[in-house]
């Protein structure tokens, strides 16, 4: 065989995930070359097809489920995320020190910027009569990419967090299991922005109409507002389910010194539901207004009720956060979408001294 056959094999090997290339790449190349007839100058078609098929298959099965990607993306020193099942640790290790991986994780983490940007763009588009502001959407996408790129430039803490939570030292060597468990930090729920964001978006819709932007009362915008709220509700619910899946995936933290009950309660949940129902009603009434103009006053009233509800719920959330000395999220208010009890393990201990570390097995 010649050098070109080896180069060709190496080219096809790029189809495999990088971690797999590093683990098995050299021996796979060796086998490909062993299988060649002595005088072969190029790879036979059969080998090319085999490498292509196996590489694409490895890429497909080498991609972790959504909950694993989400927990990696959302890991921070203040949250509990970031621990991945052992079978996905090679994938994590492969990406951990790549800037592009940090960027895509930051994009996943910052998806709310995109959603909220588009939600906010809607009423401005409605005001201008366009129904939808394409420049607002472009701005939202631009902001999303920009903030993700900036986040990807400052990733050292994120990497360190992921390292220790997956039983790895920052240099990639494994930590003893008994130390890994103690690297949990406090249980903070990072989706705190969902509720104020949702309420603020709703308030803008309501406020814009109440302050006399006539176009928002048109049938088209009423339907748009209706579907935006439905989308936001579904998104918030999915977020809660996703976070719950991440919690279940993570190993149990060490014995917790204290258990915290959810911060919210029936009253807060009732306010949120009331606010959302109010928004739905406002949107539906807006839709009707196009037909029955006499209901305009009622629609305005519903929107003011909605504004007041949003303000009260936001104040309640902040109050509860201060009282409990922790961040709260939507699932504190919607109990069915999140864990009932939040564990709060001890704070991050100082790293053990080198001489205290047991020898690695």
């Amino acid at each position, binding site marked *: 065989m010649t050098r070109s056959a080896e180069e060709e*094999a190496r080219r096809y090997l790029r189809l*495999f995930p990088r971690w*797999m290339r590093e*683990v*098995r790449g*050299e*021996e*796979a*190349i*060796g*086998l*490909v*070359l*062993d*299988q060649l007839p002595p005088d072969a100058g190029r790879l036979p078609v*059969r*080998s090319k097809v*085999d*490498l*292509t*098929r*196996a*590489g694409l*298959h*490895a890429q497909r099965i080498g991609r972790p489920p959504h909950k694993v990607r989400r927990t990696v993306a959302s890991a921070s020193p203040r949250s509990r995320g970031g621990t991945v099942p052992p*079978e996905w640790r090679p994938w994590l290790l492969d990406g951990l020190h790549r800037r592009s991986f940090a960027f895509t994780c930051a994009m996943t983490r910052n998806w709310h910027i995109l959603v909220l940007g588009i939600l906010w763009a809607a009423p401005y588009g409605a005001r201008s009569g366009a129904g939808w502001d394409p420049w607002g959407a472009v701005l939202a996408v631009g902001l999303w990419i920009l903030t993700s790129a900036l986040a990807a430039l400052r990733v050292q803490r994120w990497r360190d967090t992921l390292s220790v939570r997956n039983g790895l030292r920052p240099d990639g060597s494994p930590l003893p299991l008994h130390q890994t468990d103690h690297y949990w930090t406090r249980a903070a729920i990072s989706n705190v922005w969902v509720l104020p964001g949702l309420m603020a978006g709703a308030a803008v819709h309501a406020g814009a109409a109440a302050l006399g932007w006539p176009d928002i009362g048109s049938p088209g915008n009423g339907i748009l507002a209706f579907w935006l709220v439905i989308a936001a509700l579904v998104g918030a619910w999915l977020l809660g389910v996703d976070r719950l899946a991440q919690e279940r995936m993570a190993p149990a933290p060490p014995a917790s010194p204290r258990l915290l009950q959810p911060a919210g309660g029936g009253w807060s949940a009732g306010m949120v539901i009331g606010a959302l129902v109010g928004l739905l009603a406002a949107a539906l009434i807006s839709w009707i207004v196009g037909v029955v103009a006499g209901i305009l006053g009622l629609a305005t009233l519903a929107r003011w009720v909605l504004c007041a509800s949003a303000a009260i719920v936001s104040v309640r959330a902040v109050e509860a956060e201060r009282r409990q000395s922790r961040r709260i999220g939507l699932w504190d208010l919607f109990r069915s979408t999140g864990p009932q009890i939040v564990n709060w393990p001890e704070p991050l201990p100082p790293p053990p001294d080198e001489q205290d570390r047991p020898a690695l097995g």
Partner: protein
Amino acid sequence: MHDVPVATMREPTYLILVALGGGERHGYGITQDVAVLSEGRVSLGAGTLYGALDRLVDEGLVAPTRSETVDGRLRRYYALTEQGGIAVRIETRHRLSVARTAATQLGIAGGLARSWA
């Protein structure tokens, strides 16, 4: 004891495990053995072999034992784990049972099917 879905073990996987049942092998050795075992029907490429080996290592059925460099090429040897040995025996017994029943039902080779028992 093991959680290998032996009933759904695919042909290449089974042949790889059988090949390793004869002792530790490197990748090329496994492909050669598989070709012999299957009478030339199954010819494993590098991509297929290492994809399967990677999965089998993850499942704990196969483990790398040692590596060496021959003519500048890395060769890693693999062997069955205890769990892998159990899995391949169960699969073999299952396949034998199916083959015996099939041979009896189809009247293949007269009493041969009974003589295997």
